[in-house]
């Protein structure tokens, strides 16, 4: 194991005392020892420096200082020989001569710097003085180090960074925005501190960039381009791909369902970032017949299903049956539902060009929403704009309506209207992860755990929660933060700082949230944006959407891949190749095979 320089030197030095006691090596503090050696060597060598700078006192002080500096400039004093050190030090004579003799000494004497060719030639003897000083310093430093090793033992035994007696285990549950951002910030905050270790549990081995999920469902982006491997995003966090099956807050243990029997994972600090799942409000029939739209496999499923129904429609001779195949129903008029309806509309209408017997008029993309207007997160004018543009592009809206029932081949609305369809996608509402709902702590009506403004659970100061699965009060407004990626990311930063503050015994920060705004794509090169109270729509908002989310996408490599996909899309049609076998609207039962691992 190589020597560890730098910021973890303090840890090394602390552990070195123990090491020395065990091995009988010198107990002299290495920093003091180095400084004393440097002081001696610098002072002894300054005999050459005194003539170079023309002042004995100044030369002695400068020599001593440079001597100390020199021993700290070389981190690993044990490697290299006297000739290595002498040659390296000799190279330093030039900049020091130039800085001190040519610039600082004349300027301090009220003269102009002596850096012309004639001046330099005049000061040439001083350069020789500096050279002699540094050669002597380098040689002497190495010689005295050996003498000191002989009498006091090795200075740096270079042990492997020994594991501390007690490691603080920070366990993060969830590999979404909240979990990964927390882990990344914890890594930054604790840097080289070996007394803390992080473990992140996620059901997939990648971090999904959900704002671009619609583009996967609409065949605009390659699925792997919006998912970043967790192990490349996080440098010192142990990543476990596993499903959490239970949390014991008393014993401080997380139960994991790995491929064998259940295993328990102890924690000192636990971060709950498990996110949310679709909320069917108890309609199990709807859940059985609807596509979900939460994960990458959901998006790939939808894409392949859309291509599949096109293939079947092309061969279908019954007009009613064909109409059902080409009808797509999206339940929910929030961001997800609107973006998905807009994306599917573009994808499906574009695909009709490749199917000779199908025309755009055969297609129906229906968005069902329970309220009077879509996009409640945006202002009314932008929501109206979005609805109008989507209607112009062929999307049908069923407002003030709810999906009351669903069965294979049809969806029934609250008004009694029955829509024949083979594609029904549910985006109407979410609830906290079931594992969070089982915890013996207070929850809100969505099942999210209640936390205090520092993001800690009220009765468990070392259990923290954030993101969609937590009800986080905003200290600024007194309201509950919205369950968005933006809020989760900011909560993660605050939470990481609070964990560190907790470990160090410092005061915790309260979370304050001020939304920067919202962006929503509603169709081809059309979007709505509300940034810091300013409203944008159309092409500019769409460019803004792409610019903002491309910058937020983690990793340069992913950015380049997505940018390439977007550029290619300008010149070529979207891909309509079915990439997985699809066996009818079996929906949820085939999901495990599709989960990216």
């Amino acid at each position: 194991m190589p020597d560890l320089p730098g910021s973890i030197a303090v840890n090394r030095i602390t552990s070195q005392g123990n090491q020395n006691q065990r091995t009988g090596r010198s107990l002299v503090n290495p920093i003091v020892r180095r400084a004393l050696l440097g002081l001696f060597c610098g002072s002894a060598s300054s005999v050459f420096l005194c003539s170079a700078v023309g002042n004995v006192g100044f030369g002695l002080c400068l020599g001593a200082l440079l001597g100390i500096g020199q021993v700290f400039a070389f981190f690993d004093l044990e490697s290299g020989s006297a000739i290595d050190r002498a040659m390296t030090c000799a190279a330093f004579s030039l900049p020091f001569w130039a800085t001190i003799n040519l610039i600082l000494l004349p300027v301090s004497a009220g003269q102009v710097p002596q850096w012309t060719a004639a001046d330099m030639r005049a000061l040439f003897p001083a350069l020789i003085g500096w050279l002699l000083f540094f050669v002597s310093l380098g040689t002497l430093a190495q010689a005295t180090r050996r003498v000191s090793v002989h009498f006091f033992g090795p200075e740096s035994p270079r042990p492997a960074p020994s594991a501390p007696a007690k490691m603080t285990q920070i366990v993060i549950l969830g590999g979404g925005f909240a979990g990964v951002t927390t882990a990344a910030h914890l890594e930054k905050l604790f840097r080289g501190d070996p007394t803390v270790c992080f473990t992140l549990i996620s059901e997939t081995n990648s971090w999904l960039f959900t704002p671009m999920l619609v583009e996967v469902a609409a065949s605009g982006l390659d699925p792997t381009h919006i998912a970043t491997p967790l192990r490349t995003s996080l440098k010192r966090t142990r990543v476990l791909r596993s499903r959490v099956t239970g949390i014991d807050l008393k014993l401080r243990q997380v139960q994991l369902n790995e491929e064998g029997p259940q295993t328990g994972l102890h924690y000192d600090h636990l971060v709950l970032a498990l996110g949310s799942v679709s909320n069917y409000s108890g309609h199990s029939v709807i859940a059985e017949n609807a596509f979900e739209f939460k994960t990458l496999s959901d998006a790939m499923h939808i894409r392949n299903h859309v291509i599949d129904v096109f293939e079947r429609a092309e061969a279908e001779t019954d007009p009613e049956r064909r109409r059902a195949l080409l009808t797509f129903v999206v339940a929910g008029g929030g961001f997800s539902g609107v973006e998905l309806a807009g994306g599917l509309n573009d994808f499906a209408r574009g695909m009709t060009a490749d199917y000779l017997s199908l025309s755009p008029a055969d297609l129906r993309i229906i968005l069902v929403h329970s309220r009077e207007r879509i996009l409640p997160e945006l202002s009314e004018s932008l929501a109206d704009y979005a609805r109008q543009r989507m209607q112009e592009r062929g999307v049908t809206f069923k407002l003030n309506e709810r999906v009351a029932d669903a069965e294979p081949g049809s969806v029934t609305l609250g008004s009694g209207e029955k829509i024949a369809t083979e594609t029904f996608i549910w985006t109407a509402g979410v609830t906290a992860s079931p594992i969070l709902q089982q915890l013996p702590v207070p929850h809100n009506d969505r099942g999210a755990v209640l936390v205090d403004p520092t993001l800690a659970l009220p009765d468990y100061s070392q259990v923290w929660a954030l993101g969609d699965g937590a009800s986080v009060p905003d200290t600024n407004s007194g309201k509950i933060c919205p369950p968005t990626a933006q809020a989760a990311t900011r909560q993660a930063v605050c939470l990481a700082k609070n964990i560190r503050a907790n470990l160090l015994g410092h005061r915790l920060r309260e979370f304050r949230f001020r939304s920067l705004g919202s962006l929503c794509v509603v169709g081809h090169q059309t979007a709505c944006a509300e940034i810091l109270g300013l409203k944008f729509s159309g092409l500019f908002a769409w460019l803004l959407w792409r610019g903002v989310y491309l910058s937020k996408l983690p990793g340069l490599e992913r950015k380049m891949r997505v940018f390439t996909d977007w550029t290619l899309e300008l010149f070529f049609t979207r891909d309509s190749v079915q990439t997985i076998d699809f066996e009818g609207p079996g929906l949820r039962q085939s999901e495990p095979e599709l989960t990216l691992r």
Partner: protein
Amino acid sequence: MKKAIGCALAVGAAGGALFSLVGLVTPVIGIFLGCGFGMIFCLIAGRRANTPGAGLLWGLAFALLFWLLGPATIGSLFVSRLPGPTTMLDTVRARFPDLVGYLLFFGAPLGICLGTVNRFPTLQRVRADKFDLSRAAVVGGLSGIVGGWAFGQWMAKVNHFPLIAGLVHLSSPNAGVALHFVFAFIIGASFGLFFQRDVRGYGSSLAWGLGYGIFWWFLGPMTVMPLWQGRRLDWSYQHAQELYGSLVGHIVYGLIVGLVYAAVDRLWTTLFIESDPINREPEAPGSRSLQSIGWGALAGLTGGLVFLPIIAAATGLTNIAGLVGSTSPAIGLLVHLLSSGLIGISYGLLFERESPDFAAGIAWGLLYGLVWWFAGRLTLFPILQGLSFTWTHEAAADALPLLVGHLIYGAVTALVFLAFERRHRDWLLLDPRFAARLARLRRPAGTPAPALWFFASGLGVLLQIILT
């Protein structure tokens, strides 16, 4: 060891004999001096000369140190009891032929011979280094041709090609051009053969090229060419002054050879070795480069701010603004900071993972500052102003104040860059796999890097003071 001492004594004595033939010392003193030099070199730095390339650099650095501490310093004491500045410089100039002799007859042959002798016991290690003869010669030769093209621009300008053609009793410039490229190829190939094991990245290769270029100036135009033409050797500083343009040309040639060699070599490594998933590293080259660009820009800006008072006092910011056709000091400040940032970025890309500690960082930074004085101030700056570059000692004397600034800029940039690099590296070191990889990539003790730092930066600056 006995074999090495015997070799050192023999080569030293032969070098001393040759030294006496130049007329600088009597044969007895020459042989005595050579044997003494060989013995001291063998005892102090002999083990460092474990390959011919490493030996060459240690020999050259040792010869320079020997000359500086011997004739240049002690020699002046014999001239006068109270050596004043003028006396010492006069002595140094008068002893300039000794420097050439020390480098060519003592340092270089001793280093190469000891490196060859010491190479055999370490043949196992050499094999482990995977030295590739054909790659070294071909890549080195190709980079020599590219460097030769750049050097050829100056040679064409001063009508030097007929002189080169005269070496084979021709007078046609085209023959001179052809011969020039033959020499460029040979020197480039020898660069690869000597230094393939030692160069690790673009930055170190650039610095190796700088040192090798200086060495070839002493060997080529100062020594071999007059001998080939049947002329008497003239190693006086006045003659060296006349060849100042050739010195800059050799340095620029060396820099290009070093850079191109590293680029092609790295390309080879990237395409055929690092692209192999077995050799994959946790951080992809693209991510590393992006980090280096950011850190380099910040480091360069810091260096530029330190350099600012010097450049403002030495030439004025309006001079810099002239690069973009302006006379405003504010524009000059912007151009200066922009160019500082860009050079900082190039430092980051060229020298990433080269410095294990601050001492090494400062040394690489000094060399990079020196490189930009030659490549930037003496060459690119006039070209960007729409003028022709003049590699004369008068032009170099005018630009000498900025040499100080360039050295300081390089050192500060390197220090700040290393601080960023270490900050990032330290917490990654908790991963033992990363620590092991870093240890493998780090330049180990015993490479000729310290010799190169002293030789290239020492002579790079000293020659400017002595010759301008």
